[in-house]
C-alpha cells in the first residue's frame, strides 16, 4: 500500500478530521443561524478571534475555566450585538459592517495582547488553561473506532451537541420559527406581527454565541495559546461550509466534515511533496459549484411558480423576476 493511502486509511486520520472540523462547525452553525434570518453574518473570523483572545486572557488571570468560557461567549455575543446595532439601528450595510468588525478584531486582539503580555506574536508567556480531553470508557478500547472518536477535546463533543441545539432552536422553538419566517419574507413576517429587527438581533447574537465556542476551542484546545490572526481564514471557510450545507443542521455538519477531511488531507499531502495547493483549493471550488446548483434550482422553482400563476390567470405580467430577462 502506498504511504499516502496508508495514512489516509489510518485511524489517526479519522481523529484528525474531527479535530480540524470542530472550530469550522461551530462557526458554520453561527453563519447558518444568521443566514436563516436573512442577515448573513460574515464577521465569524473576528468573532472567533475575539473569543479566543478573551478566553486565554481571562483563564490566565482568573485560573478559572468556567469564567474563561463565560467571558469568551459573552465577547462573541457582544460582537453579534454590535453588528446588529450597526446594521439594524444605524442602517449600515451588514457586509461592510462585518468586514469592519473583522478588521477591528484583528487589530484590537494584537493591541491588547501586547499590553497584557508585552508580546505581539503569541500569548505563550501567559499561563492560560485548556479545556480537558475526554477519554470515553469502553469505547476507547474498541480498536479503530476508539482511536477515532475517543480522546478528543471536550469541545469536539460539544460541537456535536451544538448541532442538536441548533436543530432544536430552528425547528422546535417559537424563536426558530420567527427566524425562518423573517428570513423567507420579512414583509410577510412583519404583517403577522413579528418584530423583524428584534428577531434578526437574536439571530445575530446566537450566531456570535456559536462562533465564540469555535474561537475558544482554537486557543484553549486545538493549541494552548493565542496567536495573532490565529483563525487563519476559518471564519471564511465556515461561510463556505454553511452555504454548501444549505444553512441546515445536517447539511452544515456534513459540509464541515468534508472541509475538515480535505484540510486534514492537505496537511498530510504537504508532507509528501505533493503540491498541496491543488488539494487545498478543492473545498472552495466545490462550494462555488454547490452554490451555483443550489441557486439555479431555487431560481427555476421561482420561475416555475410564476409561470404556473400566469397560466391560471392570477397575474398577467411579472417584470422584476429572474436574472436572464
Amino acid at each position, binding site marked *: 500500500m502506498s504511504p499516502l493511502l496508508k495514512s489516509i486509511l489510518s485511524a489517526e486520520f479519522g481523529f484528525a478530521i474531527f479535530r480540524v472540523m470542530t472550530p469550522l462547525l461551530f462557526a458554520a452553525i453561527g453563519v447558518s443561524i444568521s443566514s436563516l434570518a436573512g442577515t*448573513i453574518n*460574515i464577521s465569524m473570523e473576528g468573532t472567533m478571534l475575539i473569543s479566543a483572545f478573551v478566553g486565554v486572557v481571562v483563564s490566565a488571570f482568573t485560573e478559572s475555566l468556567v469564567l474563561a468560557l463565560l467571558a469568551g461567549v459573552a465577547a462573541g455575543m457582544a460582537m453579534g450585538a454590535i453588528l446588529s446595532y*450597526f446594521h439594524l*439601528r*444605524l*442602517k*449600515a*450595510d451588514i*457586509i*461592510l*459592517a462585518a*468586514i*469592519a*468588525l473583522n*478588521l*477591528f478584531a*484583528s*487589530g*484590537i486582539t*494584537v*493591541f491588547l495582547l*501586547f*499590553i497584557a503580555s508585552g508580546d*505581539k506574536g503569541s500569548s505563550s508567556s501567559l499561563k492560560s488553561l485548556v479545556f480537558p480531553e475526554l477519554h470515553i470508557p469502553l469505547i476507547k478500547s474498541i480498536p479503530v473506532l476508539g482511536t477515532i472518536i475517543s480522546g478528543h477535546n471536550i469541545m469536539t463533543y460539544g460541537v456535536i451537541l451544538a448541532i442538536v441545539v441548533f436543530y432544536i432552536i430552528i425547528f422546535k422553538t417559537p424563536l426558530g420559527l420567527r427566524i425562518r419566517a423573517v428570513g423567507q419574507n420579512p414583509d410577510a413576517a412583519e404583517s403577522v406581527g413579528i418584530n423583524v429587527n428584534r428577531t434578526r438581533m437574536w439571530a445575530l447574537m446566537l450566531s456570535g454565541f456559536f462562533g465564540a465556542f469555535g474561537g475558544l476551542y482554537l486557543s484553549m484546545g486545538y493549541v494552548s495559546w493565542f496567536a495573532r490572526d490565529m483563525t487563519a*481564514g476559518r471564519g*471564511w471557510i465556515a*461561510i*463556505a461550509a454553511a*452555504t454548501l450545507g444549505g444553512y441546515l443542521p445536517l447539511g452544515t455538519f456534513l459540509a464541515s466534515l468534508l472541509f475538515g477531511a480535505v484540510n486534514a488531507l492537505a496537511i498530510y499531502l504537504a508532507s509528501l511533496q505533493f*503540491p498541496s*495547493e*491543488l488539494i*487545498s*483549493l478543492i473545498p*472552495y*471550488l466545490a*462550494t*462555488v459549484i454547490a*452554490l*451555483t446548483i*443550489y*441557486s*439555479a434550482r*431555487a*431560481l427555476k422553482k421561482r420561475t416555475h411558480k410564476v409561470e404556473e400563476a400566469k397560466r391560471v390567470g392570477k397575474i398577467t405580467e411579472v*417584470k*422584476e423576476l429572474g*436574472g*436572464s*430577462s
Partner: protein
Amino acid sequence: MERFLLKYFTLIRVIIAIAIGIVISVFLIYLISEEPGFSLRSFLLGPFLSRSRLAHVFETASPIIFCGLAIAVAFQAKQFNIGAEGSLYLGAALGTAFAVSTNMPAFIHIPLVLLMAGLAGATWSFIPAILKARWKASELVSSLMLNYVAYFLGLYLMNFHFRDKEAGYLVSYELPESAWLAQFIPDTRIHYGIILALVFALLVYYFLYHTTTGYEIRSTGFNERFARFGGISVFKVVVLCQVILGFLAAFGGMTEVMGIHRRFVWQFSPGYGWDGIIVAIIGRNHPLLIIPASFFLAYLRVGGRVLNLMSDVPAEMITVIQSIIILLITAEAFLSQWKYRVTLRQAERGGAA
C-alpha cells in the same frame, strides 16, 4: 452655512468619522504610551519627516488606488464582489509567468504584460459575474471562495513552475528588464504605477459619470427594478462591472510586481483587495475621492509603522482606528438626526436648499 452643510453632508460625515477615529487614536496613545507626546508626533508627523517615509506613502497608495477603483465600479452597481484580492493575486501570477517567458522590446513588453495580467484578472472575475447574472448565485460567497482558489492556483504556479531555485527563498524568476516599470524619483521606489493609477482614476470617473454604460451601472445600483423597467440590461451590467473589477485589480497588482519587486514575491496574499474595500467605503465609491482615501490609508499605514518602530505603541492601533472609521461611515443613520434638524430649520425659514 447650513446650505453648505446639506450639500456636502456625506462628505462632512466622512470627515467627522475620520476625526473621531483620530481622536480615539490620540486617546489610546495617551492611555498606554510612556511618552505620549513623542509617540503622537511619530504617528501623525512621522510619515512626513523623512524622504523615504514620504515615498513609502506613495508606493503604498498606488496598488490601493487600483483596487479601490475596482471595488467602486462593482459597488456602484451594488454588486458585492469581494474578489479583487483573488483577481489581483492570480492576475499578477499569470502576468509574471508571461513576462518571464517572453522577451521583446520594453515599449511593447510593458503594455502587453499589464494587459495579460488585467485580462487574466478579468477572466477570473467573470466567473462569479456570470454565476450571478445567469443563476443568481451570490457573488459575495462565490467571489470569496474564488479568492482562495486563485490564491492556491497562483501559489502552485509560482512554487512549482516559476520558482527561482537560486534565490534562496520562495520567489519567482526575476522579470526581464524590458518588463520593469521604471522608478522615476531617485532614492525612492516610487514607480510609474502611481501615474497609471491616477490616469485610471480619471478614466473610471469619466466612464461612470459621463458614458451611457456608466449611467446604466449607477442606475442598477440605485434601483435595480427601476433600471430594468427603464430598459437597462441588468444582465450586462452585473457581468460588466465585475469583469472591470477583475481587470483593474490585476492590472494594479501587476504594476506593483513590475515596479517594486520585479519578481513574484507573495507567499501570502498581499491584502490590497481588502484595502480596496476600505478606500471604496471611505471614498463613497467615487473614483476621484478614492485617490485621497488611498493616500489617507497609506499615510495611516506608514504612520503605524513609524509608531511601531519608534515608540511603545503597537502598529495594530491603526487597524482598530480604520475599523472604527469604516463602521461610522457605513452607518447610514449616523448623524442623520442632525441632517434632519438642519433640513427642517431650512424649510421653516422658507429657504430653497
